[in-house]
């Protein structure tokens, strides 16, 4: 067990509480940087996929995990990010600028869409955003002149300062690009969490009434949460579309949004680590299942198996470990640190009763 003797206020502000913690993450980063030299390009592609899912997941995490607003419509913002980025590139904007711009545009539009949704709570917000995700498909078809409709679009060549990044020619470069985006997004996420805005998010999540009494403007805070969340998810969507190479109106359907939400729940709501752990599950589950069915013989393919297993996993997590994989890890760590003094019901959940806010 490590003890923290705090001698100045920066201790609480720092990104890493101590040297040990810092070196762990530095080691992880070193491994990530060395990865292209170690594993095959197929698995490198899979890891890139994990990183992309993690970016999109971090976006939704900001909204659902930090601010407590459920969205079943984030696939719409992934689509928006992706289409904006590609349309900008086709208009001659260099890739790096187009990529940053698509995040900003998606964020602004997300914040604007949030304004009428501010009054909605819980289930109503979930339904409204779900409708948005379903509408996105039709809207892309209606906007065919720009989006290519059902025929879709192909991702243009990616050039960063004259250096071409191609998934098939140099997968390592693609991987590094995704890694840089992940690092920047994670840093921004952490910074927001240690700033007044991040605490305002938590305040809105836990008690809107007392947040107001502390001077937090609920409407503004929720709008900001939507904006930032949509911007990050838009970046994830842009990367996803570019990585896939081609996309159309059905690439970003509402099932993707649901999968994204399930992903962050499995990973652990409200934790940055949760988005990454969830992304690993989402990206590797199909691989794992296909290996498993291969071994069961004849390599047969069961349609819907992936979503079915995913659903079962999720049910198990919600019932037995609502804090997700990361929550389970935290408990394990505490148990190890206390060993052998951990009590059996150390983590017992408090019994809770539901009291409605509706009067009829």
């Amino acid at each position: 067990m490590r003890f923290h003797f705090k001698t100045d206020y920066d201790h609480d502000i720092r990104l890493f509480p101590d040297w040990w913690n810092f070196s762990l993450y530095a080691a992880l980063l070193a491994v990530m940087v060395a990865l292209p030299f170690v594993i095959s390009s197929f698995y490198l592609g899979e890891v890139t996929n994990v990183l992309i899912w993690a970016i999109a997941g971090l976006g939704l995490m900001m909204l659902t995990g930090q601010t407590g607003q459920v969205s079943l419509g984030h696939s719409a913002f992934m689509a928006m990010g992706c289409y904006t980025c590609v349309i900008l590139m086709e208009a001659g904007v260099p890739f790096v600028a187009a990529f940053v711009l698509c995040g900003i545009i998606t964020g602004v539009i997300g914040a604007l869409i949030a304004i009428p949704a501010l009054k909605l709570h819980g289930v109503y917000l979930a339904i409204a955003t779900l409708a948005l995700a379903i509408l996105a498909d039709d809207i892309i078809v209606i906007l065919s002149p720009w989006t290519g409709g059902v025929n879709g679009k192909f991702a243009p060549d990616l050039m960063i300062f004259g250096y071409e990044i191609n998934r098939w020619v140099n997968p390592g470069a693609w991987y590094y690009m995704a890694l840089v985006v992940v690092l920047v997004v994670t840093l921004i996420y952490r910074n927001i969490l240690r700033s007044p805005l991040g605490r305002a998010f938590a305040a809105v999540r836990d008690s809107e009434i007392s947040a107001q009494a502390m001077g937090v403007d609920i409407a503004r805070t929720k709008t900001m949460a939507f904006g930032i969340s949509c911007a990050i998810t838009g970046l994830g969507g842009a990367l996803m579309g570019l990585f896939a190479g081609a996309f159309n109106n059905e690439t970003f359907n509402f099932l993707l949004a649901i999968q994204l939400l399930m992903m962050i729940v499995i990973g652990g709501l409200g934790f940055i680590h949760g988005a990454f752990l969830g992304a690993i599950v989402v990206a590797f589950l199909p691989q794992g299942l296909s290996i498993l069915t291969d071994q069961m013989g004849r390599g047969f393919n069961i349609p819907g198996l992936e979503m079915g297993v995913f659903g079962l996993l999720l049910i198990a997590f919600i019932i037995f470990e609502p804090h997700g994989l990361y929550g389970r890890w935290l408990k394990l760590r505490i148990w190890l640190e206390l060993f052998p003094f951990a009590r059996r019901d150390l983590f017992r959940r408090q019994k809770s009763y539901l009291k409605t806010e509706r009067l009829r």
Partner: protein
Amino acid sequence: MSLLELNNVTLKFGGVTAVNDLTMSVEEGQVYALVGPNGAGKSTVFNMISRFYRPAAGSITFDGHDLLKLKSHEVPQLGIARTFQNIELFDRATVLQNLLVGRHRLRRTTLVEEMFFVGRARAQEREHRLAVEEVIDFLDLQPYRNQMIAGLPYGVRKVVELARALSTKPRLLLLDEPASGLSVEETQDMRWWIDDIRRQMGITVLMVEHDMGLVSKVCDRVLALDGGKKLAEGTPAEVQSHPKVIEAYLGTGAISKTANAKGERV
């Protein structure tokens, strides 16, 4: 001019008149208590000052500002902080984070500064933490500073709520039943704290409290309410001996501190 003035304030819920033509004023530096039986409209007065409810008639001013023109989240900007009767803390955050939310009204950074933690962001965080640590020291919350609210005992939560309100650097502090549910020792602490808040920090306090023992020890002025109407106003001793108060609030029996010191909760 008084710090807080309510003039002829009336509020109705459907057919029920919760507050009826209430006029009161709190002077700077006072500790002022609202007393009265359950349902007398005490918390409703608080909720009108916090702008959760809008009175049907009358005016509420704070230091010359018309509170009725403001939205709920703008009220704290003037320097009004409050606690809640049924503790409303941010359960999934630590004590420290809860108190830091209290500093929200003093935020000066822009979104971009916070996203990249540049410019004023770091200096501002240090400043916030310095202020919050002072409150933690004042209220002896050091053992709990990094604990989640969800696991804390009731008495501690009550103190955290007070601490969060103090973190906003208020001029007027609204305390909704600060001693309800507290043990005798905790109530004793609360009494010293309220005294110190007034003396050392120069904060005006308006509180709702059932514990007449506490009220008579810390308050300068007391206003008794019943059925949304003012029954009596004056020093604690005056109000406690006022015949109408004895009849409506304390019953016809003798005025005893113990009878009301049991800390009833609504």
